[in-house]
């Protein structure tokens, strides 16, 4: 009997504490899913969640660099308060995404999460962040499933997830159209690396290429960590396609390009890759074998981007390690702008940031001018600038003179080549 009494007392005490804290949290907050309450001296806590250890840490470093530069430009200040930037390593796998998100959502002061880096980490992260009422803004996950709300077709989107990078479906369509219509390719081989990104992009490209009337003659994969690509290249060369599409990252992409020229039967195969290799180091590292390699990717160019790169060099002393720093920079600026727009400050100096209000603001984002182009968000979280997808080609200027970004060869909807 006494045990039941004890349980009842514990239950009542916990209930009182919970309602008390809810009252304290929710004072004056009329947001449907709650507010972040900032007392007069509180900083604004923003979290990044990226892969910053292990073999994929160059993605995370790339994004974190973009985030930090964006915040430095605003002196780490938003809403008249100091920004406290915290970080969590989400690795590039589901376990990392799950753990990092759980940790971040357990802190009620975190206003929003910028991340994750990899689609595979995003799949378990999205429901956790969404159910906890958080805004999750990813600068580099392009898998089409992430912004697809339809569970039947494999979609995993949930409210609160947005991304500043484009959808693989768009990139796959551009790659296939370019290969079929511009290059006149009728057969295509594809290579992915088992990552969510590469597999999804390969599927989208193959589907579009087949719809145009082309034939996919080989679909294969390499492992992350492979250095010897001779075996798969020999296999592809045994039934040489018109074009090889390989949306894989450094260093596997470097190895594939560098070794292809030694493979008998590979002389006439056109090499087409994607934004995974849209990194300044790719032509430098691959040397002359990168000459003529074509890439799909966003045309992140122009003076603002040049200025950004200068800031990067000043801060880190070398080129950005991957191709998503500009998307992270844009994500940070969109977030800070959104906070300025929706936060409400009382006369006593307490600021409330409505979580649903923040989501709604993002869902209605239109024509944000960023480094990556003009960003407008769809209701299911696709904010990536769609007009900027182009085909680049690596020329001697990129390999020998360090020119970057590379030469634009073709834009969808335009006839001009060269």
């Amino acid at each position, binding site marked *: 009997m006494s045990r039941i009494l004890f349980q009842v007392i514990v239950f009542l005490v916990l209930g009182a504490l919970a309602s008390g804290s809810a009252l304290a949290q929710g004072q004056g907050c009329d947001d449907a899913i709650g507010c972040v309450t900032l007392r007069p001296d509180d900083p604004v806590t923003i979290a990044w969640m990226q892969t*910053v*250890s*292990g*073999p994929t*840490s*160059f993605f*995370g*470093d790339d994004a974190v660099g973009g985030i930090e530069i964006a915040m430095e430009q605003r002196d780490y200040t938003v809403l008249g308060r100091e920004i406290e930037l915290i970080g969590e390593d989400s690795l590039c796998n589901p376990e990392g995404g799950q753990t990092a998100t759980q940790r971040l959502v357990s802190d009620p002061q975190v206003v929003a999460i910028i991340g994750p880096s990899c689609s595979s980490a995003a799949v378990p992260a999205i429901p956790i962040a969404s159910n906890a009422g958080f805004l999750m803004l990813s600068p580099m996950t392009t898998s089409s499933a992430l912004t697809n709300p339809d569970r039947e077709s494999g979609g995993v989107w949930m409210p609160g997830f947005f991304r500043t990078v484009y959808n693989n479906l768009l990139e796959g369509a551009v790659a296939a159209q370019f290969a079929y219509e511009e290059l006149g390719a009728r057969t295509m081989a594809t290579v992915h690396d*088992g990552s969510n990104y590469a597999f999804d992009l390969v599927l989208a490209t193959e589907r579009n290429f087949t719809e145009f009337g082309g034939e996919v003659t080989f*679909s*294969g*994969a*390499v*492992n992350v*960590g*492979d*250095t*010897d690509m*001779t*075996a*798969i290249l*020999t*296999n592809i*060369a*045994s*039934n040489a396609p018109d074009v090889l599409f390989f949306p894989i990252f*450094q*260093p*596997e992409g*470097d*190895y594939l390009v*560098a*070794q292809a020229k*030694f*493979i*008998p*039967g590979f002389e006439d195969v056109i090499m087409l890759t994607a934004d995974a290799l849209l990194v300044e*180091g790719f032509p*430098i*590292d*691959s*040397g*002359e074998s990168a000459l003529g390699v074509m890439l799909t990717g966003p045309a992140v160019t122009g003076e603002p981007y040049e200025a950004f790169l200068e800031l990067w060099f000043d801060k*880190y002393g*070398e*080129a950005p*390690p*991957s191709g998503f720093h500009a998307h992270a920079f844009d994500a940070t600026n969109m977030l800070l702008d959104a906070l300025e727009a929706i936060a409400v400050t009382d006369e006593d100096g307490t600021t409330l940031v409505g979580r649903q209000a923040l989501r709604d603001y993002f869902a209605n984002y239109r024509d944000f001018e960023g480094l990556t182009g003009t960003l407008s968000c769809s209701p299911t979280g696709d904010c990536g600038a769609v007009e900027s997808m182009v085909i680049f080609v690596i020329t001697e200027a990129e390999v020998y003179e360090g020119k970057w970004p590379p030469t634009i060869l073709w834009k969808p909807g335009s006839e001009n080549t060269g």
Partner: protein
Amino acid sequence: MTKTRTVSRNRILGVPLPAGRSGVDLVISALRIIIVALIIIGAGNTLLEGRFTFEQWLALLFAGLAQGSIYALIALGYTLVYGILRMINFAHGDVFMAGAFTTVFLANSFRHSGFLDSQPLLAILILMGFAALVSMTVAVLLERIAYRPLRNAPRLVPLITAIGASFFIQYTFRGLFGSGFKAYPTVAFLRGTFSVGSINVPIAQLFVFLSAIVLMLCLYWLVERTRIGKAMRSVSEDKEVATLMGVNIDLIIVFTFAIGGALAGAAGVINGLFRPQGVNFFMGFFPGIKAFTAAVLGGIGNIPGAMLGGMFLGVIEAIGPNLVLNGLGIPSANQLKDVIAFTMLVLVLIFRPQGILGERLSAEKA
């Protein structure tokens, strides 16, 4: 009412086995037959199909030998340390990375100054020496700081320490040089191909193979023909007796780590000349695992075994997926390259548990 069931070692499914054979033997025999049969069927199908030309097979073979040479050089470090201390130095892959990653900056400055093109052989020797020095320093520090205090600890303790040391080295270098990728410059004379008839072999691959052979011969000479080599062998046989004979055990162990480290550093540069890209703080991880496999394959603790194991693994990885898996109709065969490598390990170990050239270790050694 309780029934006790005794399972005889000599009965399987109730059927008595021939005298002297246990159920385990039978399972292993069946496994041997199945794996060998799969390999023969796969290879037979591929060859009958005639999908690949003779030149393509040869290209794969040479690429495999070159890759195997790198594995072999790293494997020597595992095998030397195992021979002396009976411990697996899992941080050895990162010792390889330390030399390769540090030297990439010197290599690129050689290219920019034109030294690499005007004196390529001298430049390569300097690079190899520098990388060997860096890796040797890391290996010796590793022994002094991480392993020596644990020399009399249970065997699992230094093993776990090695894994910790591996992370420590990786992230130290990441802190020093960043997480991006670097690449070695390509050397003009390595770019061409060496042709005999219709067979073309990239000179880079020949260079890797020959340099590895030279380094291995030097090591073999050192261990078999010099005083310090004799001391190393005596420590490997029995530490206590070696001490009684006046051998300075600490010195020999440090020397062993230094030699293993120097070979790994040289392998880092050779690897960079052969596969210039992908120089990064994590680059030692996979080659480390492969080299460990190669060392076990060849018979751990045995120097020629490590060389043979490395070459064997390199060739099997290059040829296996196209030869066996394609013939068995397995999709994405090349992604299963590691499956081939580790299946070969299993195959060799079920035929020869001590490795290709390994001796049966006495209870004390094992």
